[in-house]
């Protein structure tokens, strides 16, 4: 099978250097995910989606940690990610509890409804 499919893959391989996946690639993905998380956090007005985007940021950070752990041949990265996960879970719980409270107060999930600290 590899004989038949090999030549089929050649044009695909010519476009992208598939074999050379460096640490940099993973870090780019991580940075991109992190940035998307930031953009989403700043852009969305729905409070729940805002926190979802913070979770996205966690994701990106975790990916970077794992990548570095793999790079340094150390399991510290994965251990760190376990803790990150833990904290993300705790934070998600509390954040959602607060969101529920805020929703009860105002009846809407709009983040812009809360501007009482306006200067």
């Amino acid at each position: 099978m590899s004989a038949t499919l090999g030549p089929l893959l050649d044009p695909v391989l010519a476009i992208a250097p598939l074999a050379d996946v460096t640490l940099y690639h993973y870090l780019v993905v991580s940075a991109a995910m992190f940035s998307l998380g930031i953009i989403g956090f700043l852009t969305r007005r729905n409070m729940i989606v805002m926190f979802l985007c913070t979770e996205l940021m966690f994701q990106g950070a975790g990916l970077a940690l794992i990548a570095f752990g793999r790079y340094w041949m150390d399991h510290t990265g994965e251990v760190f990610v376990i803790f990150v996960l833990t904290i993300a879970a705790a934070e998600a719980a509390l954040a959602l509890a607060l969101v529920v409270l805020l929703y009860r107060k105002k009846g809407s999930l709009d983040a812009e409804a809360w501007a009482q600290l306006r200067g």
Partner: protein
Amino acid sequence: MLHNLSAGALSPLAATLATAHGAGAGSAASVHEAVAPFHFTMPEVGPGFALLILVFPILASVLCGVFAALGVKSKLPAWTSVALLGAGFVTTLMVARTVLESNAPLVVHGFDWINVSWGTAPGQTLTANFSLYIDLLTVLWMLFVTGLATLIALYSSEYMAGDRGYARFFGFFSLFVFMMSCLVMGDSLLLLYLGWEGVGLCSYLLIGFIYQKPSAAAAAKKAFIVNRIGDLGLALGVMLAFTQFGSLEYKEIFRQVAEIQAAAAHGEAVPWSIRAIPLLLMVGAFGKSAQLPLYVWLPDAMEGPTPVSALIHAATMVTAGVYLIARFLPVFELNPVALNTVAWIGGLTAFFAATIGMATFDIKRVMAYSTISQLGYMFLGLGVLSSAGAANHVLTHAFFKATLFLACGSVMHGFAGQLDLRKLSGLIHVRGWKVVSYSMLVGCLCLAGFPLTSGFFSKDMIIAESFVSDGFGASFLGLLALLTAGMTAYYTFRVFFRVFVGPVEFHAGDEHHDGDGHGDDGHAFHPHAPGWAINLVLALLSLGALAASIPYLMMLFGASEDGWITGLVDHSTAAATHVTVGVDHGATFLGANPHMIMYYVSGGIALVGIWIAWMLHLKGRTEAATSPLAEEAARALGPIPVWAQNKWCVDEFYDFLFRKPLWFMAHVFYFIDALLVDGIVNLFGWLPKAIGGSLRPSQSGFLQSYAVGMTGGLALLLVIVWIVS
């Protein structure tokens, strides 16, 4: 033009400093005979007595201040002042004897005042100790200053009676005498300046004595401010003198001036910086002595009480300028331009003031303008290098002008402030006014230059000298001075013929309804005849004015050579470099001795002036208000009398030239201040508010906008770190 300095003639200046006797053969004799009366009457005293002359007036001033604070109501301040000032006069006499006998300047060291040194080079030490330099010029001045001060203090003890500020008046009066003494007796330019400013201050205080009157306050301010303009010139002159001579003390200055004079005699040019000194000093003299550009304060100064006018603005303060120039005549001689300027200003002032005097109705103002005119004569005399003539005229003028002022003052005092000559007439016939009238007559005769009066002689000295001087246009000035003499005679006797002779008629002045203590019902007005103090003083002064002519008569009839005043002057620094006036003058005019010619000419002119005054103002006059012939004459001259009456609009001109631009600039600056300065200050208040207001929207209260800010900041930080690394 330069005076021809014959190398053989020893400069009297140098002679004076060499403490030898006078140069000319005749001078010694004149000094000797001057000593005689003193020698027999006055005890010999040590130099320290000179300081007492200063101590007495300042003590009187302090005591009167205490009296004022304590609210003393009696005449105690007046008696204190009279007593102490009289003591000062007596001390002056004693010191005069000492100085006359030694024939050298007396230098008395009071106490160390300013004595700083910042280097060893000649111009780096400033010494201005409180020391006195009393030479014969000083003696001359001090005699009449202290004498007149005592008499006028006596006069004002009655004149100012009942005034709320009685003690204050005498305090200022004595302070003035102290300052004038400092001015005249000081041994350095700094002490002179101290006295100069001091008399200006006292003049201000005394002119504005009745400070509730707005016109008096304004007049005081005007006097002070106009004086200040002159004082600027004086200050600059003093500073320049210090930089040029390296010292402010007379000894040092005159020593160096003698050197410069000697160098100039050999043809060396005098540096411009030294030539500038007399020009600056002259400005100061013009301010203080009310000469042409800066005279406007003197007529307004008549707002002050009459004793003030008599002492300060007739006899003493206004002669300070004359004293300054006389004292520094050697310095002036280094710059002929300065001398010419002085002469011209003097001559023009004399003429100009006389024209105004002819048209004024307020008799005190007439006297003020005549003072300005006579001061112009003195300056003319100095300008043509007749310092003796100027000094003579100072002395005689002091006496008769004081008499005139005091007489006018008693008229004002007695007629409730009435000074308009259209409202008074025939006072000589009123009971109790004889003394006043006769002393007025004496004064008028002297002022007009009636032949054989003291004023006649002193004026003549000046006019004669101007004709033979080789100053620029001095002959023209001489003619102008003659014409002015005629005008002087006219307006003086205009006053006399209108106010004191003729039909008796008088109207009360403005102060009548204030109550003059006679219990009048307001309709019938009885004039307040002067009391013993006023009469006594007036009598003494008129006698003095008459007696002042004795030395001249003696000189005229050959009993003496120069006159003792001239002798005094010639042996001081005020001596001119060429031999002074005297019968051995050497110059001729119209082929004969100029003085003899001038006696006749000026005497004639005086008589003509008196006759014209009689024609216009006494003959055919039936009422106080007007005289028909005077009216005709005025109409014939057209608009000129009106202009003269308006003082030639000089005050208005100054207002336009100086005050209005200043007023305008003040408004401009006000707007600049309100807009720019206030604007900037307000900007500092507005700016934080505006910045805060512009930054406030960033505190929107939205969580996400803060997050945007944070993200942006993070991005920026990353950019910076990336660039840096």
